[in-house]
């Protein structure tokens, strides 16, 4: 079983996710990139669940999927609210924190 | 326990606080009443402190009137106070100068008198506390406590740039004392590691043994905090600002007593606790002191503002004190100690004198005055005597101090006086002696521009001479200025024993210092427990280093 191959693939996915979050200005793409990072993590969990024959890995993967679902739910809620108030989805203009 | 069972030191130290409480209840616009209570409280305090002077056993080098009460026993923090030859006259100087300062501020401080008197009283308690504290934490508490009232005095009643000056003064000293706090803690743990129990007491911490490198760092930490306070050459820039902006009363206390905190700190804590480092650092500190003397004097010469001139002159005077202290022989340290008191008196008097003309003309620029001797003869006479005392004319107090310091520094330059170390250098003394010339140059030049020359400025024509209140102040100060000059033995005899003890501690040889540590560990733990009769939670004693 090519575990370190899978690991490398997970790392690549992770890096793509991070770049996506940092580079793209569209909040949706950022959300999906975060999901990508989560999936990379899941992949590693499952790979090692298989390697050590311990169901724990798969349970955590399962939980993380539910977590991702919750996150998308809230995220999209926020995006809708922002769309209404700021009328934009560009992350650069959403900088209420700036004094 | 104190003097004949009476906790005298606590009374003297905390009487001003009680006075402050009393003042709290007086109505705000009863200015006169507030100031009179302030003066009465501090004068009583002075009279009580005279008991120290008469009951002081000159021959014994140890601390007298000692009081020790557990404050935070588990940490080893005790209310441990005592007076010895070194702190006796500094305490007396404090209790003597404070009533005079409040009296001198009678007309100068018009608004917010209540806060002013309260701050002065708190300041006095903090200063007295710092001089008598023998527990490092207690000392540190009073050391920081001192800054607060002084900060407000400069900040509220000061001149135009008072906020800048007050903040600069506060931060400068606070930064210094932070390093000291770290050093104190380090010693505290070293003590615990070596003796197994926690203590901040001066006597206990004095027994701790440090390696030379440790000593250097600790000495540097303590030294920086005190050097800023002295002020030594590179750390002095807060002084002129603080003095110029402070009200007369503030600068008298600042120059008279607060500056002595630094030199007292060196003599009491930095030197005996780290003997090897002190001796190693001595030539450099002496060099800095000499630079301070000449630098202070030369820069004073070109000042336009009288108060700034006096501020720089006190840098020069305290350079003498430091030179004396680091000569490590009886004459040098006694000279330094005496010079501290002299500086308190003569520079305090100078600031009061400047206060007098500032009250009348509301300006301190030398160019504004001229030919005052004609208009205010008595004032000119007093100013002349104080000027002579500050440039060290024989027969007045300045000379005795300076002469002893020069003798001390001179002997330090000859190896046979110091067993293993060639401390000072011949050139230090020669350069320090030129201080005498510069002193005469800037003081007399100022005196001439203010008092002699023609009476041109019309504003000076009808200046009133000293009134009774001011005359009383200056007579009191002049009595002591002449007394120290003519008969200094009353002061020298009492300080000799404790200074010899400090010298033995500082001049301890390398071997004696290190094996003293080892011999001490084994027996110490049992004796101290019984001796101090304290509840000390018994911690398994680590192996002595």
């Amino acid at each position: 079983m090519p575990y370190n191959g899978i690991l490398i693939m997970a790392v690549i996915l992770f890096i793509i996710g991070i770049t996506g979050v940092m580079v793209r200005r569209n909040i949706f793409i950022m959300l999906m990139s975060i999901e990508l990072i989560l999936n990379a993590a899941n992949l590693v969990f499952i790979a090692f669940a298989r390697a050590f024959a311990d169901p724990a890995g798969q349970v955590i993967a399962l939980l993380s999927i539910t977590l991702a679902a919750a996150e998308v739910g809230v995220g999209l809620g926020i995006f809708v609210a922002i769309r209404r108030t700021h009328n934009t989805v560009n992350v650069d203009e959403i900088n209420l924190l700036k004094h | 326990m104190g003097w004949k069972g009476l906790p005298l030191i606590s009374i003297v130290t905390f009487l001003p606080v009680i006075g402050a409480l009393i003042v709290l209840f007086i109505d705000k616009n009863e200015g006169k009443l507030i100031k009179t209570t302030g003066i009465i409280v501090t004068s009583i305090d002075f009279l009580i402190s005279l008991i120290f002077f008469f009951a002081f056993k000159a021959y014994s080098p140890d601390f007298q009137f000692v009081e020790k009460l557990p404050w935070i026993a588990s940490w080893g923090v005790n209310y441990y106070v005592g007076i010895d030859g070194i702190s006796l006259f500094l305490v007396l100087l404090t209790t003597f100068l404070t009533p005079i300062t409040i009296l001198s501020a009678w007309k100068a401080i018009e608004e917010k008198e209540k806060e002013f008197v309260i701050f002065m009283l708190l300041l006095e308690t903090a200063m007295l506390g710092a001089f008598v504290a023998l527990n490092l934490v207690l000392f540190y508490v009073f050391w920081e406590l001192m800054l607060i009232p002084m900060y407000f005095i400069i900040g509220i009643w000061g001149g135009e740039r008072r906020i800048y000056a007050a903040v600069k003064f506060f931060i400068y000293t606070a930064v210094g004392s932070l390093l000291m706090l770290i050093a104190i803690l380090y010693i505290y743990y070293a003590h615990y590691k070596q003796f197994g129990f926690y203590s901040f007491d001066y006597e206990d911490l004095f027994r701790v043994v440090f390696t030379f490198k440790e000593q250097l760092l600790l000495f540097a930490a303590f030294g920086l905090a005190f050097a800023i306070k002295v002020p030594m050459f590179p750390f002095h820039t807060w002084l002129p600002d603080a003095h110029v902006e402070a009200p007369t009363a503030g600068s008298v206390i600042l120059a008279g007593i607060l500056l002595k905190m630094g030199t007292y700190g060196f003599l009491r804590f930095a030197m005996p606790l780290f003997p090897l480092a002190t001796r190693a650092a001595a030539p450099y500190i002496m060099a800095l002191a000499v630079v301070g003397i000449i630098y202070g004097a030369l820069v004073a010469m070109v000042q336009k503002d009288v108060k700034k001139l006096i501020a720089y002159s006190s840098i020069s005077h305290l350079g003498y004190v430091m030179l004396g202290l680091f000569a490590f022989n009886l004459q040098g340290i006694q000279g330094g100690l005496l010079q501290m008191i002299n500086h308190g008196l003569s520079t305090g008097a100078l600031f009061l004198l400047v206060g007098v003309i500032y009250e009348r003309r509301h300006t301190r620029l030398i160019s504004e005055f001229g030919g005052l001797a004609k208009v205010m003869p008595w004032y000119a006479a007093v100013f002349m005597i104080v000027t002579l005392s500050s440039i060290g004319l024989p027969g007045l107090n300045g000379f005795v101090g300076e002469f002893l310091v020069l003798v001390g520094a001179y002997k330090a330059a000859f190896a046979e006086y110091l067993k293993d170390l060639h401390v000072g250098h011949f050139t230090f003394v020669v350069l320090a002696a030129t201080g005498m010339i510069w002193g005469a140059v800037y003081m007399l030049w100022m005196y001439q521009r203010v008092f002699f020359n023609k009476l041109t400025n019309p504003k000076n024509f009808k200046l009133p001479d000293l009134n009774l209140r001011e005359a009383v102040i200056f007579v009191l100060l002049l009595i002591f200025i002449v007394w120290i000059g003519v008969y200094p033995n009353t002061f020298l005899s009492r300080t000799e024993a404790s200074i010899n003890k400090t010298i033995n501690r500082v001049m301890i040889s390398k071997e004696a210092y290190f094996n003293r540590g080892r011999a001490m560990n084994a027996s110490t733990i049992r004796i101290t427990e019984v001796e101090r009769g304290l509840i000390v939670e018994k911690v398994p004693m680590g192996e002595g280093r």
Partner: protein
Amino acid sequence: MLATMLIYIFGALAIFSGLMMILYRNPIHSALWFGLVLFSLAGIYALMQAHFLALIQILVYVGAITVLIVYVIALLNFDQRDLVGKVTILKGIAVIVAAILFIELLFYVGGLYVKGIAPPPEFGKAANIGLATLTRYLFPFEVISILLLVAVVGGVYIAKKD
């Protein structure tokens, strides 16, 4: 041997579609590419004896989440133009930093060699997973349920038009 071959194929597919996802301008297209990534991952899960999870991945992730995203993107129908914006140097540096991070992680991941042990036959089955979650990992399971509840209420509250 076939399994490793398939895993690598699915892996490559996932990576490719991930890249496409972050490169495409139009969010809808990147959402679809996102779906493809999830599919390929589901494939790998299946090959890893995690049959139940592969199924869940497709059902929940692709079916629900990706569809929801597409739906919301369509709902907000913002125009693409304002998104063009200039590529600031900060974004450039960000890519470089990500590359450095990648190299650093390789140091950690690169040398690893794990010799797996053969899992029991019905290792990945739903029953086995269900048994594990409701016995040993009961507590996290409950916590996640509460989280879901909070998320749902939160989402609705935020998006509500009052």
